[in-house]
């Protein structure tokens, strides 16, 4: 079991309110990703759930009972830290076994569990090494191993992959997703990475200055953002925003169109512009286009786009892919 419910959770450091009022319900076995700009309180919220920080108010209900006043070890959660936080002078085996040893589990049982975890994580050959004799990816696996042997109700990850290089990150991402399927455990995962958030999450929680801005599946957030903030945060490259006269035509303060939802033509279209920059990624080309209607817009063109900087070009947004926002930045539903 592993349901976690946050009820009116607040956190202040001195006079500074970091989390004004957070409400969230996480179902058993769900993979939830926290995203948001730097400093918005993702780590703080995760640490509140872990018990590494005390709440200033509210309840953290784990499996039906309030755990807000329990010490971290009593909450039955495991955390994987960004810097791995392995014990440097202990072997991999002892690192993984340490939590069980502290819990007073008998030796043979510990050994069996460590062996099983090592097998799951491909660490069997490294059990007698010290952490500093391992690569970054292997260290991260040890940190995960340390988390899984305790059979926690839920796993908490705070940017676990941000110290790894790009290729390893992709691999570890898949391994964590695989692990989630195998264990079926609840996981809460903090990340900066758009791709991690979109691909791993059952549900994404977007945080903005400590407030839960929107919660939903990755595609819900992508297709129906509730606010300008979410629209701008989810998706890469960022959604284009245009306000003023053009937005008025759509009865909105601001309209937003994603770079992948604009068609290009060298002869005719809705908006006229000039290519300022072109980024060639191979599979796609990102064009940065100066337009009269809304300044510089980003457009994704499939494949290698043959026009370079300086070329005149027309843009046409896909009609049913235009997002409309009112003056408070809230989405206006039933897009025109």
């Amino acid at each position, binding site marked *: 079991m592993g349901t976690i419910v946050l009820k009116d959770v607040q956190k202040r450091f001195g006079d500074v309110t970091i989390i004004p009022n957070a409400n969230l319900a996480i179902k058993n076995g769900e993979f939830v990703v926290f995203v948001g700009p730097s400093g918005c309180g993702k780590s703080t919220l995760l640490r509140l759930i872990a018990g590494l920080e005390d709440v200033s108010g509210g309840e953290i209900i784990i499996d039906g009972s309030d755990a807000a006043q329990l010490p971290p070890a009593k909450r039955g*959660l495991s955390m994987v*830290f960004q810097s791995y936080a392995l014990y440097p*002078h202990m072997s991999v085996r002892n690192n993984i076994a*340490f939590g069980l040893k*502290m819990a007073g589990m008998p030796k043979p049982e510990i050994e069996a569990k460590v062996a099983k975890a090592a097998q799951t994580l491909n660490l069997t050959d490294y059990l007698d090494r010290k952490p500093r004799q391992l690569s970054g990816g292997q260290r991260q696996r040890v940190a995960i191993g340390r988390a899984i042997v305790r059979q926690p109700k839920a796993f908490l990850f705070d940017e676990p992959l941000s110290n790894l290089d790009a290729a390893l990150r992709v691999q570890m991402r898949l391994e964590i997703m695989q692990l989630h399927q195998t264990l079926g455990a609840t996981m809460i995962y903090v990340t900066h990475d758009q791709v991690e958030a979109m691909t791993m999450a059952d549900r994404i929680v977007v945080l903005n200055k400590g407030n839960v801005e929107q919660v939903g599946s990755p595609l819900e957030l992508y297709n129906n953002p509730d606010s300008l903030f979410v629209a701008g945060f989810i998706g890469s490259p960022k959604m284009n925003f245009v306000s003023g006269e053009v937005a008025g035509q759509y009865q909105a303060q601001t309209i937003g169109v994603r770079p992948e939802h604009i068609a290009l033509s060298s002869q005719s279209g809705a908006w006229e512009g000039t290519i300022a920059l072109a980024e060639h990624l191979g599979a796609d080309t990102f064009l940065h286009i100066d337009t009269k209607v809304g300044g510089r817009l980003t457009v994704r063109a499939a494949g290698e786009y043959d026009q370079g900087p300086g070329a005149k070009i027309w843009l046409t947004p896909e009609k049913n892919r235009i997002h409309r926002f009112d003056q408070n930045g809230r989405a206006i539903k039933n897009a025109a």
Partner: protein
Amino acid sequence: MATQQTRLLGKLAVAPSVIVLFLWMIVPLALTIWFSLLRYNLLDPGNESFVWFLNYEYFLTDPAFFAALGNSLKLVFAVLAISIIGGTLLALLLDQAIVGRNIVRLMVIAPFFVMPTVSALVWKNMFMHPVSGLFAWLMKSVGLEPVDWFAQYPLTAVIIMVAWQWLPFATLILLTAIQSLDEEQKEAAEMDGTPPLSYFYYIVLPHLARPITVVILIETIFLLNVFAEIYVTGTGGPAGNLPYLVYFQGLLNFDVGGASAGGIVAVVLANIVAFFLIRMIGRNLEG
């Protein structure tokens, strides 16, 4: 070519200082060795004669030598034990958020800056004096017989004074080490539900292994040389260590040959200690 030339130039450039340092070391050492092979008494000048290893024979068979060696070792081990155990406890305490932490830290460090002679005088006259000392007053005020430290427990008294001087050093080094313990590691231990004693034993102590070896090395070098505290308190008879014995031979018995032999013995002993220490530290610093 260029690199060979620069290498030669480099050697030439450092040569003068290396030569000076070498002479600085070798001349006194050679002279001491030379004196140690002579019958050389200041009361009988002009009658020096070459006696081979007779001085060593006398020095090493003198009961005072074994007493001094024993005192040297007892002093070193006792002060090391006090300063490392006490230093660890103090460092753990100072790492906590106690009130007036900065002032307390400053006070704890202070004894290290007091000259050994001054500290010995202060201890002798203000604390351990059997009539006017603070300890005597405390004993008397609870109705007990005051202890005459330097007569009854001379070595213990010296150990207390020296430990008082070296405890701050160990505390300072160990405190910095404790503060460099990774914050996330502490939190990981918290998540693992580690009770305080286990936390100290499994996480803090291994982290302190290196700084403790460094403290042992540095303190041992200085503790083998303790002299001022013994000289100033006049405990050289019962509590004299090797340096004191060498002083006694040379300047109280006027036996320069015997003192030189004692000096060389002390050098050899110090090198044996250094050999083991360096090996131990080498292992610890690798780990």
